[in-house]
């Protein structure tokens, strides 16, 4: 009997159309747009100006606060301008535009394919290198990795959990990364274990990727302390708290950090980026992006430079098919419809999904029939219908008392609702409001 998390969850059709497709390196575009807000927290501060020449891997923006990250140029060329550009958030935010000229890399970066296993650095030095490389959580939340690796005083991690479940339907970027870069991923995991000083790491992989489980299990025998754990397919297993529950059977209390359960969770893509940063001195300037959709001629996995307009990725996958209703940044469950195909790929872009008009249409909302399906599927044990009503009638006290801030916005409630109620839309709004109220109370 395979493990999974114990409360709620759904199993939407997997639709992993691009599974098994080899990683293709996408050509460098003519111009990249690198947003300064690619992570959770304060936007980075640009340290270059118009007309500056940069190489691939040059630092172009420094952290703008404690929770923030470095940003490096993903191409070589000239800074065209620093201006506002619409990004995946749907709002205009500051970005650096770089005109590409050749592809000259910073000298310190090792571009060879040689596998470097040994690392003489201390844990602190590894974390410093991760911070310098601007690595953020690549699962989608884009939380700066160095902060997650530095637990608050008094807490000590006991186990490192690697999130390789890829529970979102359609997405396959983590899957193919494990298949093609398995050794690198495992070295990355060893480095992360050293950074937080733990002896045990578990890589959780959902059972719909048997080839990846087999491949990594074979490789892991050479790496002491790393264990591969197949998990039952269940959405949203990639959620931090759900994965901790699935792997070590511990529940993180409301409002507490995963470290309170003795666990640090990192994405498998992040561990590959850590390998490249520490062993190859390569900052986070490219990532694997799944481009997929049922009508797309060639769903694929592309190794893409950060800042490439998603237009270029869709062209590589066969162009926008007729009858496309929505282009989603991310997966179908947690992704967000993009307002324009000129939006750039950022550190957090795991996939691009093209839905047809029929697939993307939202059915009209009906009255709640009190079936409590949403309550059954909520992986946080919340009461979505109650929280939606509390938000609709601006009863913030009630929303807070029913733990609206614990919502992980997985969308299981909206997915399962037979009356097509936009539960998550309202809950997300209420969560934002209540978090604002709590912040104001503390200040």
């Amino acid at each position, binding site marked *: 009997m395979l493990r999974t998390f114990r409360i709620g969850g759904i199993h939407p059709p997997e639709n992993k159309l691009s599974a098994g497709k080899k990683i293709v390196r996408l050509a460098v575009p003519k111009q990249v747009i690198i947003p300064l807000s690619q992570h959770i927290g304060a936007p980075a501060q640009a340290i270059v100006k118009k007309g500056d020449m940069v190489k691939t891997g040059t630092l172009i923006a420094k952290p703008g606060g404690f929770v923030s990250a470095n940003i490096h140029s993903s191409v070589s060329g000239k800074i065209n301008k620093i201006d506002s550009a619409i990004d995946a958030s749907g709002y*205009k935010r500051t970005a650096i535009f770089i005109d590409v000229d050749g592809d000259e890399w910073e000298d310190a970066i090792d571009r060879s394919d040689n596998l470097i296993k040994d690392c003489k650095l201390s844990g602190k030095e590894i974390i410093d290198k991760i911070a310098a490389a601007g690595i953020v959580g690549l699962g989608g939340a884009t939380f700066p990795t160095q902060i997650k690796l530095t637990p608050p005083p008094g807490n000590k991690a006991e186990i490192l959990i690697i999130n390789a479940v890829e529970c979102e339907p359609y997405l396959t970027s983590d899957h193919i990364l494990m298949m093609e870069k398995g050794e690198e991923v495992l070295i990355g995991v060893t480095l992360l274990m050293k950074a937080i000083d733990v002896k045990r790491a578990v890589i959780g992989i959902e059972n719909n990727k048997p080839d990846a489980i087999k491949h990594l299990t074979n490789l892991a025998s050479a790496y002491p302390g790393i264990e591969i754990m197949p998990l039952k397919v269940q959405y949203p297993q990639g959620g931090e708290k759900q994965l901790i529950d699935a792997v070590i059977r511990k529940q993180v209390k409301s409002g507490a950090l995963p470290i309170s359960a003795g666990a640090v969770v990192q994405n498998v893509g992040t561990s590959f980026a850590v390998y490249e940063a520490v062993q190859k001195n390569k900052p986070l300037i490219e990532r694997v992006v799944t481009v997929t959709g049922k009508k797309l001629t060639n769903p694929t996995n592309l190794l893409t430079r950060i800042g490439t307009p998603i237009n270029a990725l869709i062209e590589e996958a066969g162009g926008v098919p007729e009858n496309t209703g929505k282009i989603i940044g991310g997966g179908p469950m947690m992704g967000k419809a993009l307002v*324009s195909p000129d939006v750039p790929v950022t550190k957090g872009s795991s996939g691009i999904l093209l839905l047809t008009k029929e697939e993307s249409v*939202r059915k009209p909302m009906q009255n709640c029939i009190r079936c409590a399906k949403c309550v059954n599927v909520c992986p946080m044990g919340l009461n979505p219908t109650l929280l939606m009503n509390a938000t609709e009638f601006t009863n913030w006290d009630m929303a807070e008392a029913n733990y609206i801030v614990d919502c992980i916005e997985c969308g299981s409630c909206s997915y399962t609702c037979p009356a097509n109620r936009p539960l998550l839309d309202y809950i*997300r709004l209420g969560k934002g409001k209540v978090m604002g109220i709590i912040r104001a109370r503390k200040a």
Partner: protein
Amino acid sequence: MILIAIISLGGIGAAGAALLYATSKKFEVYEDPRVSQVQEVLPAANCGGCGFAGCAGFAAACVKADNLDNLNCPVGGASVMEKVSAILGKEALKTEPTVAVVRCNGDCDARPQLNQYDGVSNCAIAAALYGGETGCSFGCLGMGDCEASCNFDAIHINPVTRLPEVIEDKCTSCGACVKACPKNIIELRKKGPKSRRIYVSCVNQDKGGVARKACTNACIGCSKCEKECAFDAIKVENNLAYIDPVKCRLCRKCVVVCPTMAIHELNFPPRKEKEADSTVKPQKIQPETAATVTPENK
């Protein structure tokens, strides 16, 4: 027989009356009679515009307060506050009547739609999600959170322009729409003599070119109005002009110079011919003036 019934029922009645009387005396809560007096002169709209849950709460606060400096009923205005001050013998501040003003003029013709939103028809939810269906991420989303928040039927979305329009006669300036609008477009502005007002009908802070591309009616921050104003009432900040209603003397010169016609004048008589010949550009029909001839007002 009938006598027994009269006596027993009469006795029960008398005992009940005695009990009720005793209870009401024992648990009597003293209420300042002035609270109900004040409440009587209040408009009884219970709109919350004063900051209290309803008129009763406001009345109690008025009686309790040492002075009425921070207390104002926006619905009743100066006349009601005068009555309140007469009852309580406390001086009320003279406040000028205000009215809600919609500072967005990006109708469907001026602001081309770039994408289609099919989520919940609620401005707050749409605003939390993204910048909106047009290139302007500051402008009205048109889903009517203001309309839903209004207790006085004073603000409505025009189905043609998709912009809210204020019915001045009904607006009590309670501020519910100001709070409901996630884009902070609606402002409570001084009503002005004869309801005449001049204001910048735009809140776009993008640079001129970007704003203009997104909406032909946008303020582009060109500062022409700022230079034209003889009373130092206009300030351009973050590529956006703002007219200080206190300093504005309603000369209407800024309205004429604005290249995008983003400055609106309300309830003024038509201009004289010769003025129009020189520099005045033809004025578009303004949504607010159009609003005064809605079916209810005819």
